[in-house]
């Protein structure tokens, strides 16, 4: 099995830089693609070659499949790494790569297709004995059936779009009288947002914790889990802070149980390469499957910190056909890692704040990692998402990690635009957070506001 000679990175920003780093360490040549306004980007600068693929608009650039495949063709790339977001969960793109003789670094197109069909994924998990949240068995086609299912489960319930995910395309329905209207609206919104109006229903679980399991599988189906992560600190279903291990998995027993459920879920759909199985843990400590993310995730560094395994390198090695290099009993996560997502947004109202970085100073020192593509003088464009840096700390335990995160946030200076650094400082000094006593309502609670979830 030989590693690839050249990989094209179909992404931008910090994850593109991350992938280029892994490639370079493996001795693999790199090709960056970029929208014309990203010409002065770090990922373009760090790559061995670069190809401009279109104007700023994502549809014509980072989502432009023909342009990206053409760029791979003219540079003789033998593989494409899609990163996260953009085309990473587009099974048509994965298929197109395979058809063109270019390896898509990630799971199979079928894994991706299934991962994107939340209703189907739920049904399969249920059948294979992975616990799921109580809900409809398959899609709910009209309001009458929705009402019937909802009454059986008991209100409140959540209407969810099959093609949604990551918190998008969800609506909580508290009472019977609201369901008809909510159903109609959710269908409409789903059709607009995802081109697919299919809906399923789940029981509404209050006070839940979002705990996910990192999965790695080789082409023969050998599957392991690399510990878990807690991503409950979310605002409008967007993760802001993640950590590994999850505070709730303080017991080895829980960690093993949720990890093994993750592996079970991955095996249920014959998952290949790197992915994440998302669970919710309710107030009783019961674990329920929610969805499977068929890509590398933003928060992968916290898992890398506690396991010592480079997950992007794993993706590349596995995609080139190499077998898994370790067994489950050789994976022994230790210590504690926390990640804060730094966004170019107002720290109180989270309004996007693009602009020029006039002064930049990154934190450092032992146990501190910054994944970013910003630099002094960089202009953060308004066209793409607002994540500008990930600050990851690693300590021997959660207390040390918290202390490190606090002092790193103090060292992190970004002038010229608003960032969410002050928000993170607030969380890292919050008693509930420090006690590990939080769920997905944390931010709402901290702000004391009734922000609409």
């Amino acid at each position, binding site marked *: 099995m030989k590693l690839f000679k050249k990989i094209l990175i179909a992404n931008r920003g910090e994850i593109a830089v991350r992938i280029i780093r892994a490639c370079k360490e*493996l001795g693999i040549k790199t090709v960056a693609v970029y929208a014309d306004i990203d010409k002065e980007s770090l990922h373009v600068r760090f790559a061995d070659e670069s*190809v401009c*693929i279109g104007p700023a608009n994502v549809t014509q650039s980072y989502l432009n499949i023909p342009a990206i*495949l053409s760029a791979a063709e003219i540079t003789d790339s033998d593989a494409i790494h899609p990163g996260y977001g953009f085309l990473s969960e587009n099974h048509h793109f994965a298929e197109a790569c395979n058809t063109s003789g270019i390896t898509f670094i990630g799971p199979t197109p079928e894994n991706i297709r299934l991962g994107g069909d939340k209703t189907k994924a739920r049904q399969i998990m249920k059948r294979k004995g992975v616990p799921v949240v109580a809900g409809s068995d398959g899609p709910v086609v009209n309001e009458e059936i929705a009402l019937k299912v909802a009454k059986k489960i008991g209100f409140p319930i959540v209407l969810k779009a099959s093609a949604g995910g990551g918190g998008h395309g969800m609506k909580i329905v508290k009472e019977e009288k609201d369901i008809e209207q909510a159903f109609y609206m959710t269908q409409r919104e789903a059709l607009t947002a995802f081109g697919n109006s299919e809906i399923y229903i789940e029981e509404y679980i209050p006070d839940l914790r979002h705990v996910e399991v990192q999965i790695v599988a080789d082409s023969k189906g050998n599957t392991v889990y690399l510990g878990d992560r807690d991503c409950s600190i979310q605002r409008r279903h967007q993760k802001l802070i993640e950590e590994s291990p999850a505070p709730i998995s303080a017991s080895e027993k829980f960690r093993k149980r949720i990890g093994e459920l993750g592996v079970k879920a991955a095996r249920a759909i014959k998952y290949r390469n790197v992915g994440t199985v998302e669970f919710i843990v309710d107030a009783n400590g019961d674990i329920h499957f929610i969805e499977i993310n068929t890509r590398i995730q933003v928060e992968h560094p916290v898992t890398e910190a506690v396991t010592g395994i480079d997950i992007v390198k794993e993706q590349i090695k596995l995609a080139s056909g190499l077998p898994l290099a370790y067994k489950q009993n050789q994976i022994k996560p230790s210590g504690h890692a926390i990640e804060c997502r730094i966004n170019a947004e107002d720290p109180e109202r989270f309004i996007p704040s693009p602009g020029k970085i006039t002064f930049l100073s990154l934190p450092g020192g032992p146990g501190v990692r910054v994944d970013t593509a910003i630099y002094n003088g960089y202009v953060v464009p308004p066209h793409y998402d607002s994540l500008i840096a990930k600050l990851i700390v690693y300590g021997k335990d959660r207390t040390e990690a918290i202390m490190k995160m606090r002092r790193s946030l103090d060292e992190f200076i970004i002038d010229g635009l608003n960032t969410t650094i002050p928000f993170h400082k607030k969380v890292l000094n919050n008693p509930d957070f420090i006690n590990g006593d939080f769920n997905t309502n944390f931010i709402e609670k901290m702000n004391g506001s009734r922000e609409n979830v």
Partner: protein
Amino acid sequence: MELEDLRELIELLKDSDITELQVEKDGTKVKIKREKFLPSLEVPVHKSAAFHEKAAETEEEAQRLATITSPIVGTFYRASSPEANPFVELGSKVGRGQVLCIVEAMKLMNEIESDVDGIIVKILVENGQPVEYGEPLFLIDPA
């Protein structure tokens, strides 16, 4: 040189960063070499800079001339096939909408048209050269 001495030398090599060792003793010369594989650390060439030929020679030229750029990523061809004549040459008079070249992407031939009337004064890329989005292809002196 005794076998024991050789063993010692090899151990010495193993535990250090030394890759080559040459020892001479009592008329016997021993050379031990160890290959250490590291991916080659080439200085990366920022290829995209090389892609862009100097489009216009002077400021006035840049103001006056129209640049036809590639709207897609692909391979530039001067003619519709290897046997055919190029669509245009230096000095060719072209009209708006006239096909100037082909950019091939994923086995599809895309005809690139001029958006001005004028005369071709510069052809900026070579036949068979890969081009990116926005790459300048022709300079046209508008009529």
